[in-house]
């Protein structure tokens, strides 16, 4: 691709990742459901779920419908690139797609989030433990310890 020849494709569309991490629903089941109601959208099957590209209104409608399949176990993320874009697709780059590691890490937390969503739905959970703000000195070297190191170096 020459610099002077860049012509964007699918202008005005959005792309969304749909992840599923459910004991009851497989990515294939979700994909078939998506195809049934796709209404001209571009859908790509992946091992974790699917990617969907199209005009924002239609994509939003499809996502709303897909979420009803398993609300607490389906997660949706916005994506900047189209599926298969040579700048991101690993078929062209080799190795994992940039961004894969972030998804891999957060996929490991889905079970806690799903539990939270289910409890929230039931509204039976006990009092909420507040997750506090990180303290400014958290994980930092205390000044007294720093002075001690400097003095030891000087000695």
């Amino acid at each position, binding site marked *: *691709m020459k*610099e*002077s020849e*860049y*012509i*964007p494709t*699918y*202008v*005005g*569309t*959005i*792309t969304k*990742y749909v*992840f599923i991490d459910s004991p009851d629903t497989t990515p294939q089941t979700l994909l078939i459901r998506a195809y049934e109601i796709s209404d001209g959208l571009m859908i790509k099957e992946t091992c974790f779920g699917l990617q969907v590209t199209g005009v924002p209104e239609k994509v939003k409608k499809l996502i*709303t419908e897909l*979420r009803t399949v398993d609300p607490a176990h389906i*997660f*949706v*993320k*916005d*994506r*900047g*690139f189209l599926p298969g*874009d040579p*700048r991101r697709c690993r078929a062209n780059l080799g190795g994992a797609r940039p*961004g894969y*590691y*972030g*998804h891999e*890490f*957060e*996929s490991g*937390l*889905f*079970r*806690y*989030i*799903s*539990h*939270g*969503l289910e*409890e*929230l739905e039931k509204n039976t*959970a006990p009092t*909420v*433990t*507040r*997750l*506090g*703000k*990180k303290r400014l000195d958290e994980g930092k070297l205390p000044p007294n310890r720093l002075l001690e190191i400097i003095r030891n170096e000087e000695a």
Partner: protein
Amino acid sequence: MAKVFIFPATSLILSDMVERWGHEALGAATGIRERIQTASLDSPPLQMTPEDPKKGLKYAAVEVPCGVRGRMALYGPLIEEADAAIIINDADLSFGCMGCARTNELVMFMIRQRKGLPVLDIKYPETDDEGFAFVSQIKEFLAGLGGESDD
């Protein structure tokens, strides 16, 4: 519907939570999409153009590495546009080179500097109870922003 800046800007969970409860998540994808869908003579194979570090001068001084300025050209306008922000403080996945690391610090600094911007500070859950706390706090925060809700 409020525009909520998410940090890490590529967070899958935050992006989902914000959209699940009827708001718009402002993350890296928003800025990247705008760039790659805009026809331009100088659009290189990658999404950032030589113009971006210059735009980043609004947010970081000229001595700052161009990696930081390029990234700020992406995130800066999103922070300015945001009505609220959610920060995950222990997001190791956003770790990177000095460009990423310093940009992360600058992004968090800018968010906290914006007066009147509601900010939710949170950590990734490590247990089921924390998962519930995580989800509840985000829902409560987003409900406070008003707008439409999918519930």
